[in-house]
């Protein structure tokens, strides 16, 4: 329910500018919005739990300079033997503070979980501007990158093995660079989407009056 297979949105305010977005986020309906809001609350609760736990441990720990919440510990009465008795101190800390390691590992795990919940959806897009170039962006990997048109050598669809399947992916060949730039690098959507984007990019980037489109595969 939270994630669908990658699908395509196209925004095209004018024939010379287009943005193709591939995302795993399903259309935002009311139940989905509520669910997402709940997840957000869960994340906040997780982080708050961790913070409160760490803070309380720190307050109870002997290294803290703060006075304990139970007030200053009364000094033990001088014993008739002239030596203090260590067991007397124990009742002042009925809850012995957890050792750092036993607390640190679960809290790190919880924080990791909270971070993981933050990125349920992956959204990757390619923006094509005629006369300027192609911009690829990804929420998962790589960030944003703009490639000017005069640096673009070719835009093509390639196929590759990945595990036991064959994936088709869209690449931009950049002049003077050793590596090609993969569009939608994290999602690698199915061939149908990739082909639609490829046609859109060619049409949008180059003038259609030039006629034939090159063979992409």
């Amino acid at each position, binding site marked *: 329910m939270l994630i669908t297979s990658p699908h395509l949105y196209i*925004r095209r*305010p*004018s*024939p*010379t*500018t287009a*943005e193709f977005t591939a995302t795993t986020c399903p259309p935002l309906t009311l139940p989905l919005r509520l669910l997402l809001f709940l997840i957000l609350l869960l994340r906040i609760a997780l982080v708050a739990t961790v913070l409160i736990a760490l803070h309380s441990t720190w307050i109870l720990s002997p290294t803290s300079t703060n006075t304990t919440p139970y007030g200053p510990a009364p000094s033990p009465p001088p014993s008739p033997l002239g030596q203090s008795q260590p067991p007397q101190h124990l009742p002042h800390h009925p809850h012995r503070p957890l050792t750092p390691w036993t607390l640190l590992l679960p809290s790190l795990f919880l924080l990791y979980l909270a971070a993981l919940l933050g990125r349920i959806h992956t959204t990757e897009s390619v*923006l094509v*501007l*005629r*006369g*300027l*170039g192609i*911009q690829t*962006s990804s929420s998962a990997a790589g*960030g*944003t*990158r*703009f490639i*000017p*048109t*005069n640096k673009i*050598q*070719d835009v*093509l669809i390639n196929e590759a093995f990945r595990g036991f399947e064959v994936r088709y992916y869209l690449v931009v*060949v950049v002049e003077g*660079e*050793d590596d*090609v730039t993969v569009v939608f690098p994290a999602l690698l959507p199915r061939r149908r989407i990739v082909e639609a984007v490829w046609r859109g990019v060619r049409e949008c980037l*180059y*003038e259609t*009056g*030039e006629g*034939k489109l*090159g*063979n992409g595969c």
Partner: protein
Amino acid sequence: MPEHDGLMRVFWPADLPQSDLKGVVVGWRNSALDVFVVAILEEVEPRNVESALKIGTLLRNAPHPVSRIFELCGQSSIHVLGLVNHPETDEIDTSPWIRVRTGSGHGVPSITCARASSIQIILFERPLPGRMQYISLNPIALALGGKQDSSMNDMPESGEDDDEQEDRQKKAEKKQLVEKLKQHSVLKRAPSAKEKALAKIVNQINWAWELEKLLQKNVSRIGTRPKRSLSVSERVVESATTMRDMVLVWLWDLVVFYVFPVMKKIFVLGLMSHRIAAEMLLRILEWRARPRYAALKDISATAQQVEIRLQQFCYWPMQYVTLRLRKNDWESVTISHPDYIRFYNSLWLVANDVIIGIALGSYIIDNAAWVAEEISRLLSTYTVDALQSSISWLMGWPAGLKLNTELAAFLGDLFLWVIEYWSSCIAALRPALPHIVWFIGFSSFAGASMPIALFSDLLSILTIHIYSFYLASARIFHWQLNILLSLFHLFRGKKHNVLRNRIDSCDYDLDQLLVGTILFTLLFFLLPTVVVFYLNFAIARMAIISLKAVFDTMLSCLNHFPLFALMLRVKDPRRLPGGIRFELRDTQDFRLAFKDAPKELPSTSVIYLKSIPLNFKAMFYQYFQMGNRIRKHYLSLRVLLCLLTGKFVPPLNRKNLYSLQYSMLPARRAGVMEMWDAVNSLPAPKRRAAPVYVPVLANGGRYPSNYGGGRSRGYG
């Protein structure tokens, strides 16, 4: 190439003040349908603007040469691009012009053009040149470029750069793939004028702010001129101000022309004498007995630290001169901004270094006795006692391993004897240790990196016995392994053919085989004993190397941390451009804003151009590279093989390790004479123009002609 798609591209500054007044849009016309808006001049006639642009009235009173603008923006003139808020019914021929409707209410202007069928409006925030903001297509280079290759080339081809060769091979293979890819693309498109203009447009964006200010300043020169002369009281005030300013100017001139040059001369002479001394020291540090031998700076961390500081000292005046020349140019020229960041980064690092060093140094000096005590205790514990106990452990069947008692006793006694001798040496050194520590503490007033480097060197000197043990045991182990290998061949009835570098079969005699086999058995049973001793010293050696690596990391952090860049990234990310990106905006709301538009707007896309700040990975690129290199050198299979076969593990070439250190300095330092020329080439302080009020209006007739003009010429 003709534009037959009817696409018009308009670059529009998003922070341009918007009003409902009529106006004229001026800017660059990069090609017929590709315009770049610089300014909107309000309440002027388009014809007047055009003629003013032709004559150059609008660019008067420029602080620096105007030709520089045209040169960098790649256009020969500024054009009138269109009209703002003019009614549609005007009979002016406006076919190449754009018509803009804008107002204070809505953010995005609506643009129409008779020739265009679709329009891209690209909005951008103008970078402020006064704050050294700018945009660029490529990430700003924090390190000096073009160094890597030169340092690679002058390195001798030793066995050391196996990794390098591997890298090179991989690169060559990749290049071939790229060549293949090039042949793949069948259709080669000729780039259109719009596509080629991008580099120019980046410059134009960087210039937009300063140019608009200049144009707006001169708008009052167009058309109607103010004709009012000053009243009597205003004249009295003005002449009084003039009198005060005159005195100030006179005083200022006195300072600038008599005191300042003398001070400057003295300073330059002091600088030059220091430079000559630095040159001599550098010569000593770089001196090599033979071209292949190591220089002093390659051996000692201290020498290298001193060398880096001296090199920086030699480079600073040159950098300063470059930055100083920036003042004589427009602020929008962005070439020297990376230099600025580099210069202040290195200054700041040195200042930091000295501050930390003073704290560290005063601590060390105060506690010299304690520190010396601690060092000698650590030395005796770890380099003498621990070694002694481990050797005696190895002599008595360690961990139940039955070693050869006689050989173990022999080797152990040998090493123990040397250690004893060494410990007596250290005992002799002990009284001098507080003085050495005091000296190290004192040296840290030259920066915290000095004591670290000195400690690193001290560590190498005081553990030299471990180094020699490692060498000796490794050599013994290596020999034995080699002998075993050849005897094993003999055992199989084969031998190594040196001439062909292969294994040949060979007919041995019976006595040869017998003796060889006996020897093989003997050596094979002795091998474990040698191995444990070798391993012991190899581990000690590795521990010392890793300790030195920690010192080196601290040094590189102190010397080359991108502190200034990090600060700028937090304070003003637009000063560290890492490229550009575009953002497509929804056009619905903006169409609704102009409901009263008489004609249907052409299909328009609104795009925001933004600058990407440099990412942290690029800032620490050099560190990543260094880490990679260290990892490749020490954690490779080759090193493991060397360790297993007892071959000497070569330490990483210092020059290789410190490519980071030198990435902030030029490959070749400027000579003494070059620096002299550069320092003297600084322009003399300009006579400050007398701050006399020069009326903008040319003489309007009613004004006494010798009043404003005459006086301003007097001290101007």
